[in-house]
């Protein structure tokens, strides 16, 4: 969704890709000015023009006391919320936001740990003269890395998968909010650690993890695919599945509008495409079909592949040499 808001002196142009977008960055880069222009437009100030495919409202417009009702009543709306609104940090807000068919743009430097936002949807305001736009705050690096440990955010299917090639060298942080704490503990604080987490919902943790000494001293690398299920869907198991290939060819158009997190979409999708197969997917227990070589069962299996499934997933992790820890 393409948005343009302008007045005589300034013009902000940006796109909204997912349900949650976060705008951060240094002081005096124009975050508050963007918000104030929206507030002016909302108050029918004719000096501000807004072009948007959906209705836009600000937290001011929602009101301090009746924001709950007003968010519940909003449909097909983009809601801009600045950091003065304390309620944006509450669990109540997160649970309401989850259920409504609205997009949310947070102009906020807080962690917002109750919101499952993607690392790809954290932006800062960039500018040149009159023009302002949003540029991603985090980008990937191509640094070569040889890990001593692999750390997954939890002990579900992704962790079970990486235990196969790496055994005890694959550890769990027991929750994404524990990743930075665990990285500070021995032996991980003095070792090279590759953290694998679901990028689609890791936005609240990224700043804290990148502020660690492990990262500053090049002892930490992050691999943040959309989700583990996304990696699986790109594996040879689904090479012949038309539904999967079609979805992968055009991901943004395949994902329903207002989807809370792409992670959830990929989980539901893989559950659907494996439903009537021996590889029936559950998040809590990974089937052998995803790691072991394919069996020659009694029935013809449509997921059959002669390729090495574990290696195909590891090949998706760029610039990492696993030779030190591979079993």
């Amino acid at each position, binding site marked *: 969704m393409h948005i343009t808001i302008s007045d005589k002196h*300034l013009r902000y142009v940006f796109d909204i890709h997912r349900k949650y977008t976060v705008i951060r960055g240094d002081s005096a880069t124009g975050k*508050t000015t963007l918000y104030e222009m929206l507030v002016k437009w909302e108050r029918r100030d004719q000096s501000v023009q807004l072009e948007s495919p959906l209705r836009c409202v600000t937290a001011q417009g929602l009101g301090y006391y009746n924001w709950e009702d007003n968010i519940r009543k909003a449909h097909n709306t983009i809601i801009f919320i600045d950091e*003065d609104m304390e309620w944006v940090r509450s669990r109540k807000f997160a649970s309401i936001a989850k259920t409504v068919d609205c997009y949310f743009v947070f102009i906020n*430097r807080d962690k917002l740990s109750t919101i499952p936002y993607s690392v790809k949807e954290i932006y800062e305001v960039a500018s040149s003269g009159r023009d302002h736009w949003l540029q991603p705050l985090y980008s990937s690096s191509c640094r070569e890395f040889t890990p001593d440990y692999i750390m997954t955010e939890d002990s579900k299917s992704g962790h079970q998968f990486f235990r196969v090639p790496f055994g005890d060298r694959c550890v769990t942080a027991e929750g994404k909010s524990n990743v930075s704490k665990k990285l500070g503990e021995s032996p991980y604080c003095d070792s090279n650690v590759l953290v694998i987490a679901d990028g689609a919902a890791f936005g609240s943790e990224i700043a804290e993890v990148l*502020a660690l000494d492990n990262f500053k001293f090049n002892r930490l690398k992050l691999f943040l695919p959309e989700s583990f299920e996304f990696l699986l869907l790109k594996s040879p198991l689904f090479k012949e599945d038309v539904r999967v290939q079609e979805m992968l060819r055009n991901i943004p158009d395949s994902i329903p509008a207002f989807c809370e997190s792409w992670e959830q979409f990929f989980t539901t999708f893989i559950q659907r495409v494996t439903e009537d197969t021996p590889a029936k997917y559950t998040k809590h227990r990974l089937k052998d079909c995803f790691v072991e070589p394919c069996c020659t069962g009694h029935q013809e299996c449509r997921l059959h592949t002669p390729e090495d499934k574990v290696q195909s997933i590891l090949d998706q992790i760029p610039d990492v040499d696993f030779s030190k820890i591979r079993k």
Partner: protein
Amino acid sequence: MLKIHFGEYEGQIDYINTYFDHTFRREGFDDPMVRAMIKDVDKSEVICGSAIDSPVLGPISPRELSGGVKMLISMLKNPDETNVYWGYVLR
């Protein structure tokens, strides 16, 4: 002296933008310390009086300064210990 209190504090100043916009005095911008704060945090220059030149927004009034520098100026100009400003840790 700067004191830091963790948690909510009765009577804290929550909305620094509103507080600053209604309390700042034009003369405050003659103070070299205030000018240095604006230069350091917002990379902006006080031209004369309270007119400010921002590299991002062009000519602005003090109302368009960032929340961060508004808080610093308020703390400098209102050193009374009864003024408690609300903020949070940036990570």
